[in-house]
């Protein structure tokens, strides 16, 4: 379990990093926290010719409020910094609730926010979170920069809309909408494992108490973070009674997801968990949106 040979660069500015990316493109990989990349290299599943280490670029490690009341998180911000951030706890309570589910403290000390987004592991929480809240990813290269909506960013198994010379430099989280409620539910085999199934829910209740803009995103049940649009359609404009929630959860399980089987869980079990967790998440999110303590 030793990696094959590779060249290593440790730029100290973003410009330098982008220059290196422009030079090496396809053959290069950026090294963030290394919690996923180093393991895949040691297993010889990945063999990048060049590693571009972002750890020496301080400007990528930030958490800032945005003018719209949301937050901007730098790509190299460690999971633990997000977990402990007051600003995040205030402006993005769903993210705050999500962080402890990501791996173990040791891994959260090294793993990065941007790394998790760029890696796009289908079982990872943050991509699902980002879809639920309609976050945006800032991609930069020598050619310029662009904001990519989360819905467009994740395009498949470990694959994203990034071009080979682009680096994720930051992620923008919108402010919580008014009258909104959220919930995060996860089941994993052991504490800290990747989720068998997890769900990130964000929804709004209109003045009549009917559901509006339901965002229900799952991880662990598809090629990437899965947005449950059919379930959202069931809820849209409805008052969230237990029956409606149950119906929406059932639709999420039957129509929105197509889970795989692996040694930990069969497709049927994952589907069942989608139903159970969707119900729990929707119930809690609606309660929060209605101003109840959860």
């Amino acid at each position: 379990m030793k990696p094959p040979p590779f060249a290593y660069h440790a730029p100290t500015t973003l410009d330098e990093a982008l220059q290196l990316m422009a030079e090496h493109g396809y053959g290069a990989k950026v090294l963030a926290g290394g919690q996923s990349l180093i393991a895949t290299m040691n297993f010889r599943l990945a063999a990048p010719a060049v590693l571009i280490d972002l750890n020496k670029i301080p400007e990528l490690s930030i958490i800032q409020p945005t003018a719209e009341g949301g937050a901007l998180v730098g790509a190299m911000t460690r999971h633990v910094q997000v977990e402990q951030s007051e600003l995040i706890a205030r402006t993005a309570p769903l993210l705050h609730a999500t962080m402890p589910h990501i791996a173990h403290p040791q891994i959260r000390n090294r793993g990065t926010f941007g790394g998790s987004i760029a890696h796009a592991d289908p079982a990872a929480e943050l991509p699902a979170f980002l879809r639920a809240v309609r976050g945006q990813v800032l991609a930069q290269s020598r050619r310029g920069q662009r904001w990519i909506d989360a819905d467009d960013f994740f395009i498949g198994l470990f694959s994203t809309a990034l071009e080979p010379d682009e680096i994720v430099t930051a992620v923008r989280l919108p402010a919580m909408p008014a009258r909104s409620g959220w919930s995060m539910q996860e089941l994993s085999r052991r504490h800290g494992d990747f989720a068998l199934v997890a769900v990130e829910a964000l929804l709004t209740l209109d003045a009549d108490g009917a559901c509006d803009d339901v965002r229900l995103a799952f991880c662990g049940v598809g090629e990437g973070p899965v947005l449950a649009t059919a379930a959202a359609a069931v809820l849209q404009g409805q008052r969230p009674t237990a029956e409606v929630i149950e119906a929406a959860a059932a639709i999420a399980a039957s129509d929105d997801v197509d889970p795989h089987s692996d040694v930990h869980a069969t497709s049927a079990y994952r589907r069942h968990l989608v139903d159970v967790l969707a119900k729990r998440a929707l119930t809690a999110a609606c309660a929060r949106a209605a101003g109840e303590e959860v």
Partner: protein
Amino acid sequence: MSKRYIGQRIKRNEDPALLTGQALFTDDVHLPGMLHVAFVRSDYAHGRIRSIDASYAREMPGVVAVYTAADLGAYWRPGPPLVSPPPVKGAIFNARTQVPLAKDKVRHVGEAIVMIVAESRYIAEDAVEQVFVDIEALPAVVDLEKALAPDAILIHEDLDSNLAAYIFQQKGDYESARAQADVVIKRRLYYDHGIAAAMENRGIVATWDAKTQRLTMWDTTQAPVVIRNGMAAMLGLSESQVRVIAPFIGGGFGPKIMMFYPEEVLLPWASMQLQRPIKWIEDRRENFFATTHERDQIHWAEIALTKEGRVLGFKDEFIHDTGAYDPYGLTVPINSQCTLLGCYDVPNYASEFKVVFTNKTLVTPYRGAGRQHGVFVMERMLDIAARQLGIDRAEIRRRNFIPPDKFPYNNELIYQDFVPLVYDSGNYEPALDKALEMIGYEQFISEEQPRLRAEGRHVGIGVVTYVEGTGIGPYEGARVQVESTGKVNVSTGIGTQGQGHFTSFAQVVADQLGVSPRDVHLVTGDTDQFHWGTGTFASRGAVVAGNAINAAAAAVRRKILAMASRELEAPEEDLELVDGVVRDKKNPEFAIALKDLAAKANPLRGAVRPGTEPGLEATDYFGPERGVTANGVHAMILEVDPETAMIKILKYVAVHDCGTVLNPLIVDGQVQGGIAQGIGNAFYEKIVYDDNGQLLTASFMDYLLPTSMEVPSLDIGHETTPSPLNPLGTKGTGEAGAIPVGPLFAQAVEDALAEYDLEVLEIPLSPNRLFELLQSKNKDA
């Protein structure tokens, strides 16, 4: 001898070094000019090797040597059979042992085919990718039952089937017991594959020194003396030319015993060929393929009882999976067979098993070593019987316990040490009572459970018992010496794997010699220091080595008393050994320090009296006539969420009887560690092979060890029924914790989900499996 230290909760002598990273593990050995090894391993479970092209690898810069089976010449030969079959009439045993490098055929995924020696492990792994092995794939034998089908493809083609062994043993007459029974219950039970997953993988450093003509080998082995003698024979050296050091080992649990693994056999040979030190450190992925496994068994069990729940007889037939080879003989299935009857007075028993070869990694003992399978079968059958007869689960066990006045109790079966299994001593009811009290059994069943159920919660309780045959022979030995510094040196050959030997053995010596355990320095597992012994396995350290050390220390004590009596001019019976001095009990000012006595016993000038030996030193041995039986009771309260099939352990209690407890802190640690492994085996860990014999769970992402988050804090109680078979009265404890956890889980889960009327007949469970069991009930309903 005083009992000042034995029985004390003393912190471990070895921990400061271990906790500060000072302790020497095999991978800490760095020698100048050392080379590194990686192996090309089979990607196929079963196949014929057509050709091997290593020419690219040989040319790579930094690659020093590449060996295939053909390159080994006369050194290539199958490993030695380690354990011969037990002397049971009608036994069949086909010994087929592992080979250093696969020659014509590969028989499991991960079997070593080519050894690469390079300047670094990085280069060696790069070279592995440049070796091309052409293998003609054969169908893989994976399923135990299909392995014996008449048309099954043969793993060892010189045999006429995949049958590795067959044993039938009985006691009494099962058929007539069955005829008298009120109820007869039959079930098929399944115990799946698992691995030990020690924290430290295997590792070897070998160095041949041409100047001294000696080979030194650091090896993560649990049996250094056996390895030394075996390696000397294989390499054509004298035993004194080989030194095997088993330094600190990060957990052994059985697979590190004395396998003569391919790597173990090849490294010393290559070091002699290349005249350079060589290191191989197994990585975690290799460990999944190349270090031995344990577990698959299928049982067809039948229990015959009276309506009062007295067991009249038990019949069991099972198939045991030995993997691709069977160097370790029948230890595991014999343990299953002999442990099944447990704490119970069962007059009639008929048990037969078949061992099959499959295209999987070899199966050898792993903590519990087959005992848990037997316990699983018996405990499950008792639970089913209790339910059918309307008897409380604890009560049916109590009714069948061997009463204390029936010891020694002869179970009449030939055990793994080749003598009939006779329980030396035991007192089972107090352990059960204590466990029931600690878990609050009555109160839980009568009050708490109904209350929680009314709240919609699914909580269940379980209680199971077990015995463990421990402390088997043949023998261990030790040399004890009081130095002229006053410190005491102890050497033994047993080796250690993290069980606290440096402390519990020091306590024994301290009590014999009146010194502090901190002044007792133990060397174990360095064959230059002591070259007699068998190894650390079968829960035998405290029993066999403990008593050998006790005997050697007692001999030194006799020397001390004789000499001090002369020096102090006082009769021996007036003397006592306290705080490093020998003194006259009546006149404590008449005293001489042990260090002064030691100096006098090794004079630089003058005559030594004829017939005396220099120094305060003695060597002695202990060989028990047979093993001793420890026992215990575990109880657990567990909650299940039937919607998600996730579980949570709310309370866990273990009461354990290992005779004299040398150090309760260490015994608690052993029990706790065993239970952690048991919980893993019961609910988290599962080795999964697909139909092609590919291992699907070869990393810790997929093979789930329980962590501190999954293992609750445990309440541990002790009962003490000393063994009459050894002077210290000890019984083994290393494996105990792991043994009864499977059936305990099964029982508690069934109880928690009582309304679903589940029957759990397999281990391990998992949320997914539980979900399927619940689904099948929903469908039935």
